[in-house]
């Protein structure tokens, strides 16, 4: 039996699933609102119910996002020359023979994704809260319009980037998806993909 | 109105003065705006305040409250000086050519009064106001209008004192504005131009109220505007059926149809008719009031039926009689009540605690009553007077009965509007709870009083017991089970009690069949063969070819000449004549002065519609009598209700002078009348305070402390007026209970000019106190450009205004405020005693 190392703990796995599921609900209902997709009524019942699903999924997403901060922020912020080299090689995804520099617990792409989700996710969550709760403010119209814009820009970014993330985390990089289910990966696989981390951890 | 609402659209110039139709008669603005948009008519508004009506005016002239006669006198002067009057009309249709007693003197010669004034009685001996008579007993005339004693020259002399400088100094209106108004309105003196004027309480509620209207009448006669479409003298009545109320004699001095109420000295019907029927020696004067005897007799037959016969003087003895000089008008009534002269009081569909001038005195007066009946839709400041501010309920002995009554949509009947148009209304919903129509309450009251009289006897039961009162099916006890309002309407119209014949025709022609409804008042008789509850309404509910028609319920939309007369829409008095004095709308030959707006036209080729034989007659509106035009040998003068048939420029019938003269209001901002050193106020007004000069102690005879007034006094330095608002109705008894209305207009306010506000440190929206010699109210300050200070006699005079639609009783927490009438004085017009609530003096302070 191959040696397995723990890449993600139970909490991280749960949090990731929560975020993923809430995101899918948010994106689907978001599309529903944007394009008046009445077909979704077969799932949600009516648009009033859909709004409840959207708003509370948003709360769940925001809470999940909040916890995510503590897990990956330090490693994501430590960007070095290896990361820059990774970026210049486009992560090795546009060549069959590309070689990338050794990667940390999160590879550069994952760090970048994390930072994007953090910023865009926070922007979406805050703007969503403003639209929903409309706190008593001086020029509520200006804030609502701004929030509406930010929320939708964030939406466009998310529905573009997250499908790519799903592709990269499944088909494009075999062996990655099992982290989200079992939390463990073979040591050999980790040595190749996250050399710096393996070294740090002393496996 | 001599004309009617829709007719306003026919005018070339519309003068709105003493009124604010955009707020208080919004639907009339439809016709005013149509005149403006469709024929380029000019709207002139003269008002102390820039009102909603003024916002639509072509010319707005500011004027201090109480200076109307100065303003209008200046206009008369301008019209005469610039020869803008319609000479042919003036010479032929008015008494301008009449010669007056050469001993007649005017205020210009007698420092403010006319000849014949008695200082003690405060009355005029009118001997010197009489016309000179010729050998036939007819007034002497000078058709050249040049004789120094002719009315025209006396008019010129009288108003020559109303120069532009003088008028501007009195009114506070800039001279250029005066000229602009005079010139524009004066342009309607041309035969093909016509001007109308619209007035309301802003003119009537002054000590010179009647003369205000008289001044405009003179102007309209000078310009030839009376009897024409788009002209006339037009009062905007303040309530949807107050015209009906005066027609049916709600006022103490009248019987229905403006017959004079009887008095003790008129001992029998013969004397009544003798003394009160005007006579004329002029065969060309119709003198329609000459028919007085027919109407009073028919009235007595209507109300006393079979109990009114030749043998008992048609029941004349049953009519209530006034004592000589007795006055039962509002101010006198409440003064008497205040002095404890009344046991009981019916406050029927009114709210005197808020609507009465000097409302504080009225409220105190109510405390003297043993009982009161408050008939209204809602409880109000009157019914609950004893709970009001400053009241001590434990000291009040009044028993109050509240009788809920129906609103106008909960009953059937007619309403008569300002244009004399009686329109039948239908019941839309049942009244709620125990509310009942007023007629049913009266019916109930009548039968109970009658029963008491029958059982107990009394001082004089006959006038009550003998009333016909056939307004419905009677039960075995003689009481009407269900009142049929149509029967009331029919009694008002009148019946032929016997077959009636026109005895002047040969052979005598039958004009009425026994038992049938009367056709109109022309067929009424003085011999007891006809009955009629109100002669001016005869013809309103009648029969045509044995078919009974409620003329007031008609809704025909055919018009005459596009003038908006709609003769088949409902019915107006008299005899459905839409424009009064329309014989003055044609020249003496019967041709319209203004062919484009012909009201009537003499048609020599007219054919009788039935016989097709030639029957020359009038086309158009119902003419003022079928007689041929004046120039014809059988022709008649146009002003048929006046004994001499002429429009009165010189009016010796009024108490305070044959010509209007400017007098200051009782409370005014100037030390003396700019036109007279001796007579500041109207010299014939009844003084409640017992003196013309303000003192801090009431004078010994008759004056109550409550009637105190202050004039040109630094304690009350600002002119005040009262007015209404679109959003509320009268004292607000109904509308304060309507949340949609309260939302728009929730609280008492006072409009004050920016300059005055700055002086007093008052900001827009501040709660301030407005006080007068008689009381005070709080009001929200509306600081606005719409009131600007006036320059009066070289001094700056500020004016403020408040509405009178609020009362302490509702909203229950008093958040609405209280009536502006707590401020107004106890004084009224010299002729009618209508209270002077439009000009008095106040002070304002931050609350």
């Amino acid at each position: 039996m191959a040696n397995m190392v723990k890449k993600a703990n139970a909490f991280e796995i749960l949090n990731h699933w929560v975020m993923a599921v809430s995101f899918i609900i948010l994106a689907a209902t978001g599309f529903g609102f944007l394009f008046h997709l009445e077909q979704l009524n077969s799932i949600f019942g009516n648009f009033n119910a859909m709004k409840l699903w959207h708003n509370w999924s948003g709360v769940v997403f925001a809470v999940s996002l909040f916890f995510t901060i503590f897990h990956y922020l330090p490693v994501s912020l430590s960007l070095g020359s290896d990361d820059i080299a990774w970026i210049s090689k486009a992560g090795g995804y546009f060549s069959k023979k590309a070689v990338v520099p050794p990667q940390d617990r999160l590879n550069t792409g994952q760090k970048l994704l994390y930072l994007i989700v953090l910023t865009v996710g926070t922007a979406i969550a805050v703007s969503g809260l403003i639209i929903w709760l409309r706190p008593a403010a001086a020029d509520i119209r200006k804030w609502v319009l701004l929030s509406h814009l930010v929320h939708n820009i964030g939406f466009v970014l998310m529905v573009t980037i997250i499908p790519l993330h799903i592709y990269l985390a499944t088909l494009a990089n075999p062996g990655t998806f099992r982290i989200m289910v079992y939390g463990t990966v073979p040591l050999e696989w980790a040595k190749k993909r996250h050399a710096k981390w393996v070294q740090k951890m002393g496996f | 109105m001599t004309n009617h609402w829709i007719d306003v659209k026919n005018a070339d110039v519309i003068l709105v003065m003493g009124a604010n139709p955009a707020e208080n008669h919004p639907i009339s603005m439809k016709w005013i705006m149509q005149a403006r948009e469709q024929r380029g008519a000019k709207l002139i508004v003269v008002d102390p305040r820039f009102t909603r009506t003024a916002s639509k005016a072509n010319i707005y002239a500011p004027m201090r409250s109480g200076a109307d006669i100065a303003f209008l006198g200046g206009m008369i002067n301008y019209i005469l000086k610039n020869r803008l009057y319609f000479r042919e009309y003036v010479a032929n249709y008015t008494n301008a050519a009449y010669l007056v007693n050469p001993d007649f003197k005017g205020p210009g010669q007698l420092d403010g009064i006319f000849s014949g004034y008695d200082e003690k009685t405060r009355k005029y001996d009118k001997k010197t106001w009489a016309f000179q008579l010729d050998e036939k007993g007819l007034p002497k005339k000078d058709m050249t209008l040049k004789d120094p004693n002719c009315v025209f020259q006396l008019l010129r002399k009288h108003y020559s004192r109303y120069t532009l400088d003088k008028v501007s100094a009195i009114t506070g209106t800039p001279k250029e504005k005066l000229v602009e108004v005079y010139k524009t309105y004066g342009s309607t003196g041309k035969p093909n131009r016509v001007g109308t004027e619209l007035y309301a309480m802003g003119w009537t509620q002054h000590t010179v109220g009647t003369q205000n209207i008289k001044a405009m009448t003179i102007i309209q006669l000078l310009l030839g505007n009376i009897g024409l479409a788009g002209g006339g003298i037009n009062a905007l009545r303040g309530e949807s059926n107050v015209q009906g109320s005066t027609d049916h004699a709600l006022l103490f001095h009248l019987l229905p149809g403006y017959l004079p109420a009887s008095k003790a000295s008129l001992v029998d019907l013969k004397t009544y008719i003798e003394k009160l029927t005007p006579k004329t020696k002029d065969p060309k004067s119709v003198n329609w009031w000459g028919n007085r005897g027919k109407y009073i007799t028919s009235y007595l037959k209507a109300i006393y039926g079979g109990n009114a016969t030749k043998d008992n003087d048609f029941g004349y003895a049953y009519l209530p009689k006034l004592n000589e000089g007795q006055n039962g008008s509002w101010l006198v009534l409440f003064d008497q009540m205040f002095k404890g002269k009344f046991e009981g009081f019916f406050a029927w569909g009114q709210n005197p605690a808020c609507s009465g001038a000097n409302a504080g005195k009225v409220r105190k007066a109510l405390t003297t009553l043993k009982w009161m009946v408050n008939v209204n839709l809602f409880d109000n400041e009157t019914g609950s007077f004893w709970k009001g501010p400053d009241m001590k309920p434990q000291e009040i002995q009044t028993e109050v009965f509240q009788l809920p009554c129906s609103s106008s949509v909960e009953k059937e009947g007619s309403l008569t509007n300002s244009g004399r148009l009686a329109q039948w209304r239908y019941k839309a919903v049942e009244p709620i709870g125990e509310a009942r129509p007023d007629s049913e309450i009266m019916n109930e009251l009548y039968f109970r009083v009658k029963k008491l009289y029958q059982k107990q006897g009394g001082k004089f039961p006959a006038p009550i017991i003998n009333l016909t009162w056939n307004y419905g099916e009677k039960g075995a006890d003689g009481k009407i089970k269900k009142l049929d309002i149509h029967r009331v309407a029919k009694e008002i119209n009148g019946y032929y009690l016997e077959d009636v014949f026109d005895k002047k025709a040969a052979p005598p022609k039958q004009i009425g069949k026994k038992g049938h409804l009367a056709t109109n008042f022309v067929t009424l008789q003085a011999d007891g063969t006809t009955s009629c509850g109100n002669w001016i309404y005869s013809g309103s509910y009648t029969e045509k070819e044995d078919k009974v028609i409620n003329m007031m319920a008609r809704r025909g939309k055919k018009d005459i000449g596009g003038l908006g007369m709609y003769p088949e829409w409902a019915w107006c008095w008299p005899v459905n004549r839409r424009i009064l004095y329309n014989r003055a709308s044609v020249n003496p030959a019967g041709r319209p002065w203004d062919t484009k707006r012909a009201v009537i036209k003499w048609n020599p080729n007219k054919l009788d519609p039935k016989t097709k034989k030639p029957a020359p007659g009038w086309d158009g509106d119902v003419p003022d009598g079928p007689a041929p035009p004046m120039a014809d040998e059988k022709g008649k003068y146009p002003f048929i209700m006046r004994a001499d048939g002429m429009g009165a420029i010189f009016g010796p019938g009024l108490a305070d002078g044959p010509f209007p003269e400017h007098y200051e209001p009782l409370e005014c901002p100037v030390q003396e009348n700019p036109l007279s050193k001796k007579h500041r106020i109207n010299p014939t007004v009844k003084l409640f305070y017992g003196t013309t000069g303000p003192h801090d102690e009431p004078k010994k005879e008759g004056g109550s402390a409550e009637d105190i007034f202050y004039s040109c006094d630094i304690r009350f330095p600002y002119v005040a007026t009262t007015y209404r608002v679109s959003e509320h109705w009268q004292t607000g008894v109904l509308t304060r209970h309507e949340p949609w209305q309260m939302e728009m207009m929730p609280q008492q306010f006072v409009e004050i000019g920016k300059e005055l506000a700055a002086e007093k440190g008052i900001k827009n929206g501040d709660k301030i106190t407005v006080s007068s010699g008689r009381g005070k109210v709080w009001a929200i300050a509306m600081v606005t450009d719409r009131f600007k200070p006036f320059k009066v006699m070289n001094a700056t005079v500020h004016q403020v205004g408040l509405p009178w639609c609020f009362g302490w009783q509702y909203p229950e927490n008093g958040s609405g405020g209280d009536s502006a009438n707590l401020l107004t004085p106890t004084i009224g017009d010299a002729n009618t005693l209508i209270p002077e609530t439009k000009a008095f003096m106040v002070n304002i302070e931050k609350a």
Partner: protein
Amino acid sequence: MSRKALVISPELCIGCRGCQTACKSWNQLSAAKTTNKGTVENPPDLTPNLYNKIRYVEVPSESNPVRWLFVSQRCMHCDDAGCMKICPAPGALFKTKEGAVGFDKEKCIGCKLCVAGCPFNIPRYDEKDKITKCNLCSDRIAEGLEPACAKTCPTGAISYGDRNSLIGKAQGAGYQKLYGEADLGGLGVLYAFKDAPKVYGMEENPAIPESVIFWHKVLKPLAYWGLGGAVVASLVHYVAFGPKKDEEVK
């Protein structure tokens, strides 16, 4: 069915506010408790129970103490309606066959974005956050009657009818161009102004907020393109480059 509209003529309006009351009567709206703040204008703003109101506008005048204008404020029933554009709930705001913008509280989700999307700040929301505003008496006009406000107005300051005929009539009365003829696809409520709109307190060039236009024209299509593009790009990449095999990683 040709488009219907209202023409508001401040030159004819006398500020009687019969229109305010008639609207409340027809729609059975409740009243608020107000106070007098030194003006006749009350309530101070449109509310969920006040679909139209008269603004009392004072501007300087040369010949008079003031020029007093009475200007009706209400939903403009825009052809290109900002409220409809931004609304996420289908059927909550809809166009009637006469061209009015109606609302359905049941379908409204209470997000209140319409308030921000309206160039005229008209929609208000009730205690359940549901949108309320003038719906041009859509039940009355569907039966061929005129809106309650137009029927009540004594001077014809509010007139209802076929949009083109109303414009023609106004031109005949001397108004060269009505406010709202072309704005926002043509407003359903046109104003006959004698002077510049700002004299009457109205926006000179009313427009839907730029961010909403950007969102509608750019962001919305981008959402589909983005999602679809990401999926397609992933597919293409997989076919072209395939998965990253460990043997190739150093």
